[in-house]
């Protein structure tokens, strides 16, 4: 247990005698002489300590102290010395050990509680009761972020995320499965959605640069109560998937801004195929290139003003017209016309979706 060892390290700077932490079975968990970690106390000594009802016991020139949580011994501490001062020091050290133990426990409980809410099927009743025990407010604005960092070391990644959000009463970070993490973050009553997006970008950039790993962040819906936190998580996951299908480049997927992708994602595959065949008979869409797609996007953005579109795309006005005519020749759709442009745009998205489905089928 690395953490007790850290504690010992700090105390070592004050205390000269050997000190250590032993678990109730006699295994040394931490010691100022780090070579002893993992070794075992002789059984006879252990028995003698446990038999004795006193809290501190001296055996063979070593002072031991039992550290209790309730009526259970969690660990023993010891100092290689016998004196009044040594005993006092050991008692102080034991208090730190207990504090540390309780801190870990509560921390563990908080994030494992959030984890259970999200991953398991807790009843509303259970959620509310456990929240009360852990003193976590039930009603609160919270948002779930789904963070995926394939190719990074899990513990390093958790460490980065936890240190970005160190305030445990407002944030909880845990791992769902290898490379996928969840951040549950509470929001002030005045926070705007912009703030949520900023957090997502910050996570992406910070994790990528700390770990030199590709990072995607998906944003779920805002939940106002612990009882709807699971829904927020599910929406974050859906945003992640839809983001991968329709956006590609964007590393941030926001459930609240899935746009048309949200609808298409829910359409039955069969309808999609029929629609596509209707708009682009004979799979003509496979001959489209990115230029055409960009042109359409540009037209939408510039309110169908061809000169402005040309300016934005840094091409000549005539090239825009040429591309429009090319699309018309292949599809019969005149994308200068708003209705045709909408059909074209949806068809492009549907074709992305279908190619995602096809890819999934290949994987399965």
């Amino acid at each position, binding site marked *: 247990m690395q953490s007790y060892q850290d504690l010992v390290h700090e105390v070592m700077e004050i205390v000269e005698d050997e000190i250590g932490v032993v678990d109730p079975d006699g295994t040394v968990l931490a010691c100022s002489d780090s070579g002893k970690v993992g070794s075992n106390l002789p059984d006879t000594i252990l028995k003698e300590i446990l038999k004795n009802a006193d809290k501190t016991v001296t055996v063979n020139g070593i002072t031991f102290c039992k550290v209790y949580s309730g009526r259970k011994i969690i660990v023993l501490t010891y100092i290689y010395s016998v004196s009044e001062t040594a005993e006092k020091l050991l008692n102080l050290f034991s208090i730190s050990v207990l504090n540390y133990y309780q801190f870990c426990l509560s921390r563990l409980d908080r994030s494992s509680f959030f984890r259970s809410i999200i991953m398991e099927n807790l009843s509303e009743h259970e959620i509310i009761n456990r929240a009360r025990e852990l003193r976590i407010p039930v009603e609160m604005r919270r948002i779930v972020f789904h963070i995926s960092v394939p190719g990074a070391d899990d513990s*390093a990644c958790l460490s980065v995320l936890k240190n970005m959000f160190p*305030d445990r009463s407002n944030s909880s970070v845990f791992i769902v499965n290898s490379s996928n993490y969840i951040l549950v973050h509470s929001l002030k009553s005045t926070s705007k959605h912009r703030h949520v997006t900023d957090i997502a*970008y910050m996570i992406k950039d910070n994790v990528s640069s*700390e770990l*030199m790993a590709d990072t995607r962040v998906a944003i779920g819906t805002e939940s106002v109560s612990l009882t709807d936190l699971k829904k927020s998580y599910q929406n974050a996951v859906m945003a992640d998937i839809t983001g991968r299908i329709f956006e590609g480049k964007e590393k941030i997927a926001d459930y609240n801004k899935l746009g048309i992708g949200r609808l298409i994602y829910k359409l039955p595959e069969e309808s999609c195929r029929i629609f596509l065949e209707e708009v682009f008979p004979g799979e003509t869409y496979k001959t489209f290139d990115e230029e055409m797609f960009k042109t359409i996007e540009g037209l939408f953005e510039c309110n169908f003003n061809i000169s402005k579109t040309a300016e934005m795309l840094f091409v000549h006005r005539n090239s825009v017209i040429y591309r429009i005519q090319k699309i018309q020749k292949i599809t019969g759709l005149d994308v200068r016309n708003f209705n045709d442009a909408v059909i074209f745009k949806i068809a492009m998205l549907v*074709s992305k979706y*279908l190619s995602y489905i096809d890819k999934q089928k290949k994987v399965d």
Partner: protein
Amino acid sequence: MASVKLKNVYKKYESAHGGVMAVNDFNLDIDDKEFLILVGPSGCGKTTTLRMVAGLEEITAGEIYIGDKLINDVQPKDRDIAMVFQNYALYPHMTVFDNMAFGLKLRKTPKHEIKKKVYEAARILEIEHLLDRKPKALSGGQRQRVALGRAIVREPKVFLMDEPLSNLDAKLRVQMRVEITRLHQKLKTTIIYVTHDQTEAMTMGTRIVVMKDGFIQQVDSPQVLYEKPVNVFVGGFIGSPPMNFVKTRVRKDEKGVFLIFGEAEGSVLQSRAQAAEQKLVKPTMIYLPPERASKIEELGYIDKEVIMGIRPENIKDDPRFFQQFPDAVVEGVVDVREALGAETLLYLKISDVDFTARVDPSHKFKPDDEVKMVFDPTRLHIFDAKTEKVLPV
């Protein structure tokens, strides 16, 4: 410290409809200790290029070297690279020291080494006096420096920066541009810096790569890019306000070779009514200096269409130019006058085409005034109308 070399690098993002060629046959040698800037409009492939160097994006074809080492198959974290992005986050509960030390701790660097590296970085960034502070107690600029410090302590061979300043307010951005340039001089290491802002590129870079649609357009110093753009795109992209462009025709008469625009075209086909409806536009002619004239004639451009480009500061109202270039005087109408203090921008209509001129603030003209100006014919950029490439004239 190391050079970086990209050799025939391509990146294709696969998708249902053929995919996007985000980066096309990218070839570039970046010297050791160079500050190189990638600039271009949104979607031109800057980030993709940077991510390929970092190893965060697989390359479709080509080779990337750091130093002499081919790194195509080297893991990102083993490439000895540090990245700086726009949305940095400092760890709120840690001191500046610990913020800078954190990444090293993750990499299990020994304690005494961490200390040495953090102090060294703090010295370079001039933030030694802030090491005990928490991020909350820092100004925006100081935070930005701590963020840079986190990359510096790693002592990478190459820094990759993707628009690191674009989230800052205008004033801080200008200040940080200077600081990053200075930092580069102190660190003596290779930096590849991405921005979509040509002003930023021009003020920071010693060498700039201008990209468009995944293709490198031109690689040169800011000065050369400005004075000798190789095509219409670079001419229009670099410089603010941008270069003026107009389609002109090359013609020749007894006086010499000239560019003309505003000619009535296809008048034969027009009915009288149409002609009457259209207001009369007087054509504008600019005679080229003899040397340029003979070159363009040699290239066979007489009677052909070309694109003429002229920078706002090369549209002159200074009497000296009227004397020197009497055959390059144009007439126009002032549309809008924008006084900027040190200079004045005039938005003109010349033969019904919009032009922007940058003139001395003493210029007295008001909107609707008719003005005469000179198009400095030695500073005209002439591009082929189809390929949009500059003509060697």
